[in-house]
């Protein structure tokens, strides 16, 4: 079987919700104004950071439309992991084994989550980590990964910091933190409770709005602008 058919057969096998997901982004126009896109800002709580063995215990997400946070359009679930809930993770997110005792397994909420994200661009703080966990699950359960373009607020925060300082040598200042809570305090954002997936997602949404409006002194209007800002010429050297 030629490779192309192999791929299309895989494609065919994927779950309708994933096919739908891909359909949105097959033709994607970056030139529109940011206000015209829907963004899904999300965060997960995990049993640990190792994507091989650790699992998701909670997902929180909130929508940003017209560059405004729509607080009620949110997604918030606890998930029962297959394995044990390690004690050290409980210390961070304060989710106890009892709390997730009756929670559904990941596979039963995954479809809903993908559907929630469909049509939107995904935003997260150090988003690669969360997407890694999510895509591992969608590949296994739904036969494909999510095609949503992703925007990392951590990356934007780095660009913003460089803009602020404009000094090459500051890159070697190791005292700076890009932790979500630290950034929120530094930028004087309204503060949310940390290590709760929904509140962290909302916190990330505040950070996202802040950075989008502040980067390039407010000169970012289209998605393309945002992408170019994230690339920043400094990395060419």
């Amino acid at each position, binding site marked *: 079987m030629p490779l192309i058919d192999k791929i299309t057969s895989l494609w065919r096998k994927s779950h309708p919700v994933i096919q739908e997901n891909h359909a*949105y982004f097959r033709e994607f126009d970056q030139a529109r104004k940011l206000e015209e896109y*829907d963004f899904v800002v999300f965060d997960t709580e995990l049993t640990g950071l190792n994507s091989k063995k650790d699992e998701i215990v909670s997902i929180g997400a*909130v929508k940003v439309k017209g*560059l*405004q*946070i*729509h*607080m*009620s*359009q*949110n*997604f*918030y*679930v606890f998930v029962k992991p297959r394995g044990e809930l390690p004690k050290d993770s409980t210390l961070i997110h304060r989710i106890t084994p009892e709390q997730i005792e009756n929670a559904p397994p990941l596979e039963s*909420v995954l479809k*809903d*989550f993908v*559907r*929630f994200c*469909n*049509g939107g661009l995904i935003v997260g703080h150090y988003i690669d980590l969360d997407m890694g966990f999510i895509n591992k699950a969608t590949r296994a359960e739904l036969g494909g990964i999510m095609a949503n373009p992703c925007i990392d607020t951590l990356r934007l925060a780095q660009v913003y910091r460089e803009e602020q300082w404009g000094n090459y040598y500051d890159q070697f200042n190791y005292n700076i933190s890009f932790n979500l809570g630290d950034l929120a305090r530094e*930028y*004087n*954002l*309204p503060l*949310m409770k940390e290590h709760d997936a*929904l*509140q962290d997602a*909302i916190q990330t*949404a*505040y950070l996202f*709005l*802040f950075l989008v*409006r*502040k980067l390039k002194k*407010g000169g970012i209007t289209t998605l393309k602008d945002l992408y170019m800002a994230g690339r920043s010429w400094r990395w060419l050297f």
Partner: protein
Amino acid sequence: MRQQDKSDVHSVTPEVVIEFLKKTLPFNELDDKTLQELALELKLDFFPKGTVIFRQDETEVEYLYIIQKGGVKIYLKDEEGMVTLKDFRGEGSYIGALPIIQKTRANLNVETVEDTFCFLLKKETFLNLIQSNSRFAQYYLKSFSEKFLRTAYAELRQHRVAPKTEGTLYLFSVQVGDLVKSDPKTVPTSATLQSAAAKMAKYHIGSLLVTDEKGDVVGIVTDKDLRTKVVAQGRSITEPVGSIMVSPVEKIGSHKVCFDALLMMMSKKIHHLAVERQNKIIGVITSHDIMVLQGSSPLYLFREIVSQRKIEGLYSLSQKVPLVVRTLIEEGAKPNNITRMITILNDHILDRLLTLMQEHLGTPPVPFCWLLMGSEGRKEQTFRTDQDNALMYRNPETEAEKRAAEEYFSAFGQEAIEHLVKCGYPRCPGDIMASNPKWCQPYSVWQNYFDDWVLRPEPKQVLHATIFFDFRPGYGKLDMGYDLREHLNRMTQRQEIFLLHLAKDCLESRPPLSFFKNFIVEKDGEHKNRLDIKTRGLVPFVDFARLMSLKYGIKETNTLGRLELLYQNEHISRELYVETVEAYEFQMQLRFVHQLEMMEAGKQPDNYINPRELSDLEKQTLKEAFVVISRLQSIIKDVFPMI
């Protein structure tokens, strides 16, 4: 690209929003269910520092903005582009309520002064809340009496000097019983619609009370009922009034003030109220009656003062002046308007008092002029300020006239001060009062006093200058006072040495910011860690305006008036003028609010502010205001390079 969110199953009510609303006035008045509904609707937006959210007369206001974090400044811009700062709003405050309620475009400019996050509430939802929840509505209605604000803004736009704040005074002081013009007009329930309409036409009124067989009032019919229930529905005009009347009638006690009536009408969406006195309906008032009342121009208290026939009657009237201030502050009037209002009321009390005194002491032997000094002279009185006054009479021409004048004015001065104390104006601790023989003198002596201060300046003279040089004639032969001012102006402009002394004094007080930009506060004693906003903050502005006015021959005594003339005559730049006025007014506002709080707590108002009790925004603004002091001082150094 849109599709139905089937994932609603996993959405929750955002707790952060509910928590925020629960600690935000007046949303904390709402029940949990309403809060939940609101939380589902609120959106959050971010406005970086310097964003103009509303543009005066341009922006269509679609949302009520509730500030979650950050702050905004609110300002007016007149035709010439002159900016007048109106207010600062910080966390938990709202913007946009007034234009939504009035269904107008933004009436002011709103610009963020910090990075600001706002919750947005749709205007329809906001209006529904106002209509369905009277306590919620009261919060907004109390914070702006609609009519008042409109006139206040109009006035600001026109740069009019004389305050015209009649609206509020009436609203809060006139009782509804006083509005009733005639006995209630009634019809029996059995009367035909036609006869009711005929009766309304005959009396030129828009409503009739409806009575039962016993003569008790059971309902009301209005113009509107005839329109909507009879004409529009094609009812027969022979039907009885009882078939369309609204029952029962909404009533209000005759002792309630008009503001309460207005609130009741607005919250129940009606225009007629029956006025009740001791369980008897004495008449009907309409929203029109209240509006007409607001439109009339002389002040109510003012009217009471000028019509007062007894000196003792003035004692209680003068006690009402601070009440007026309270209302004005609540309504958001500008500090300068408040002080001018107080000044006008105090001036009229003085006028009445001295006029009545002459009625029983007899006509004075020679004409005289009552002089007001210090803050009274500058028309900048706040609440109870100490008396600073003096008396000047025409030079006596004969020895007999001299003796008669001394005798008369000595008694007159003493008595006037006694009455003023009873009116609630404390004595001047420095004894600068007309009862002191030194400050009760003929014109020639006064001229000598001023000549002496100006020609032989010594530190004490300079101190005097700050009190005496702000004099203005308050009563009597005002021309005498103007002549003295004229004389003084001619002289001071030539007296560089005297002006240098004044200038030096201006430079002595350091702006209350330390090197690290913290506030300098009192180090010890009763006011430890507090900031004396008068001495450290306001006085430098007053001193600057006085110095420059004396230098350039400006006769005005009011600080803002002086600044405006200095700007118009191009002695100070427009930019400095705007900055100075903003900084000065902001501090005045802070002081007013502080003193009001003290008075409400039953304390004597003072000028000591605790910086820790200020919001971040207020602190920031205050610091910026103090920075202006340094700028004023560097201007003084430019103008007086010899220092």
